[in-house]
């Protein structure tokens, strides 16, 4: 709370400064004002505040005292399921895992996007460029039409095919071994098209009244299906990935300069590229396997972060993670709370993401950012 208030005061000071210096508006960024750390504190505080708002917002009214009593029961070690009221059960088994998952997904997808954009030195790259999302979606669809009716099978197949897709992209790129970055992107497009075609074949042959609605519903990104089990699975993968990115974020700066510069600085770009791509792909595969395809987060959040924190990955990566979590948490809160029918979160991320991205493109025209 202290950091949040401190950050808020600093941001107000920045705002006053900007308003008072209208002519310099374009030249000013928070990064230039050397307020990087306080801005990260501010975002952290915002995320904490938003998380709190998110867990008390929903179709079922749950009071703060009810929430507090849940945690009292949790920490007292009483018989958990028997002690909770209906509202408390909703909070513990539905809302809380969903909010936590929104944070995990938001952080995971946005940071993966930032890493991909740095590795491929291309601002239009998003995490599914190597076909990972297409592979995951195909795997899940396959799991849904197989006669074995198991939720775990759907998740496992989604994850396995996501990893197979990335491996195929990297394998093709290695075989060609000319201009590795461009070839990798092209190989990704080949694999993406291949898995999209396989998915279309599955959809074509699936029963239109039975299997097809199931596949369509699953593909559409949503956090409705999230359970504690999903949180336990996704958290270690995303957490380890984020820690790895934080540790290697300085290397990302070098990698984004190109292979020749990286080698001249004594770095082996291939090893780092493979490690970072593998980690990003694991995160994306885990996310798609759990929540389906959620668009835009991986593309626009890194751009927003770059505008705010600058291109240096030391600051940009944590800002990306925090912004991603805030964006996803807000989108999901809106998706489940605005109407009695749930709005697909993909619609909200696209509806808000597209204009924001358009604005960023306009704002940064001619700045050398693109």
């Amino acid at each position, binding site marked *: 709370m202290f950091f949040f208030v401190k950050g808020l005061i600093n941001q107000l000071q920045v705002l006053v400064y900007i308003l008072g210096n209208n002519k310099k508006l374009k030249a000013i960024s928070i990064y230039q004002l050397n307020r990087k750390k306080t801005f990260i504190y501010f975002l952290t505080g915002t995320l904490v505040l938003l998380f709190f708002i998110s867990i008390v917002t*929903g179709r079922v009214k749950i009071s703060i005292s009810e929430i507090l009593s849940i945690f009292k029961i949790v920490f007292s070690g009483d018989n958990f*399921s028997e002690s909770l009221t209906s509202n408390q059960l909703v909070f513990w*088994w539905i*809302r809380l895992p969903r909010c936590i998952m929104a944070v995990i997904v938001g952080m995971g997808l946005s940071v993966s996007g930032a890493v991909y954009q740095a590795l491929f030195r291309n601002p239009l790259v998003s995490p599914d460029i190597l076909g990972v999302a297409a592979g995951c979606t195909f795997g899940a669809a396959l799991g849904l039409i197989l006669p074995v009716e198991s*939720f775990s099978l759907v998740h496992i197949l989604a994850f396995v095919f996501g990893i197979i897709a990335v491996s195929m992209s990297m394998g093709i790129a290695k075989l060609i071994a000319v201009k590795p970055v461009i070839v990798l992107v092209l190989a990704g497009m080949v694999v993406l098209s291949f898995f999209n075609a396989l998915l279309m074949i599955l959809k074509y042959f699936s029963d*239109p009244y039975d299997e097809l609605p199931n596949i369509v*519903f699953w593909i559409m990104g949503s956090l*409705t299906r999230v359970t504690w089990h999903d949180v336990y699975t996704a958290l270690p993968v995303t957490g380890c990935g984020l820690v790895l990115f934080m540790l290697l974020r300085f290397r990302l700066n070098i990698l984004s300069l190109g292979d020749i510069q990286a080698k001249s600085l004594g770095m082996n770009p291939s090893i780092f590229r493979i490690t970072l791509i593998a980690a990003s792909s694991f995160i994306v595969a885990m996310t798609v396997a759990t929540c389906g395809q959620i668009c835009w987060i991986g593309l626009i959040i890194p751009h927003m972060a770059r505008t705010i924190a600058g291109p240096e990955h030391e600051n940009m990566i944590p800002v990306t993670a925090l912004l991603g979590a805030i964006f996803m948490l807000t989108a999901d809160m809106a*998706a489940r709370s605005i109407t009695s029918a*749930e709005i697909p979160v993909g619609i909200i991320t696209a509806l808000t993401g597209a204009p924001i991205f358009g604005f960023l493109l306009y704002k940064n025209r001619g700045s050398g950012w693109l």
Partner: protein
Amino acid sequence: MIKLFATTTTLLLILLPLIFNMQASAGQSTIVDMANRKVTISNKVQRIITSFKPATLCLFALGLEKKIVGIDTSSKRDKLHRAIMPEVINLPGVGSKSSGLNFETMVSLKPDLVILYAQKDGIALADKLKIMNIPSIIILPESFESVKTTLGVIAMAAGVPERAELVEKTMDSVLELVKKRIQMLSIDTRKTGYFASPRGLFSTATGNMLQDDIFTRSGIINVAHDLKGYFQDISPEQFIKWNPDIIILSQHISSRVFKRLENPAIKTVNAIKSKTAYRFPCNLAPWDFPSPLSAIGVLWLASKTYPELFEDININRKIDDFHKTLFGKTFTQMNGKTDEQIF
């Protein structure tokens, strides 16, 4: 006497516009389909193509299955169709509403009549078929009344109007029986219900859909009645907030969703506590679908929800009789099962 008068009036209201729109000419007649298109059709329709499941079910109920020369691909696998006419599996598949129809296959089958849907590319296909001098009709079965109109339009086009009367009469007798029993309930004693669509547990039928009509006729208040449009997704929290007394899962829903009912928060819902969550029967063809079978779906649902009102009725016998009248075989003879209990 009142029942007879009501039935006759309903039939006349449905059939009169069609009768007046028919223009007799040498071996041909003109009818108006459900998209308000005037279609001239041969009086001796022998070769019919059906393009989606509700149309196929209506054709089978009207006893026109022997005239089918092309069928929507998914209907070839339906147990009901195979039980009535095993050779249905050998009929040429023309595609489906969801993935598209093969126009050239349809033309090559030289049909006298093609039955198409009103959504997606249905009307565009009908226009293309008209250029090829192949008559086609558009149908839109989405409620009990529109199912009856569909039966009337198809029967008129195929030259078997008396058969449509029989099917409608059979449907009406079942619906009337349920209506009389449900009338005994006061509004405040009616139970609330939730319908889970084939998309998943948290996707439900809105107030515009047939399933809402089935609920109403069964004396159940659909908790999602105020929602509009096609199947709508809802959050698990909204589901718990509605707290329905009965949960009905679509016959098409995957069994995977049963695991979701084990969530401790979901278990607080009345229907789960009282173990009144059912899967809409049956294994032959779904009863929660726009077809004449939806009438028997109403009887089944009402008897499950208010068993005390139907104690004196042998529901299985009613189901058998209904199938015998429509399809020539009883439900039991076709190995029909109603394994609807979830718990």
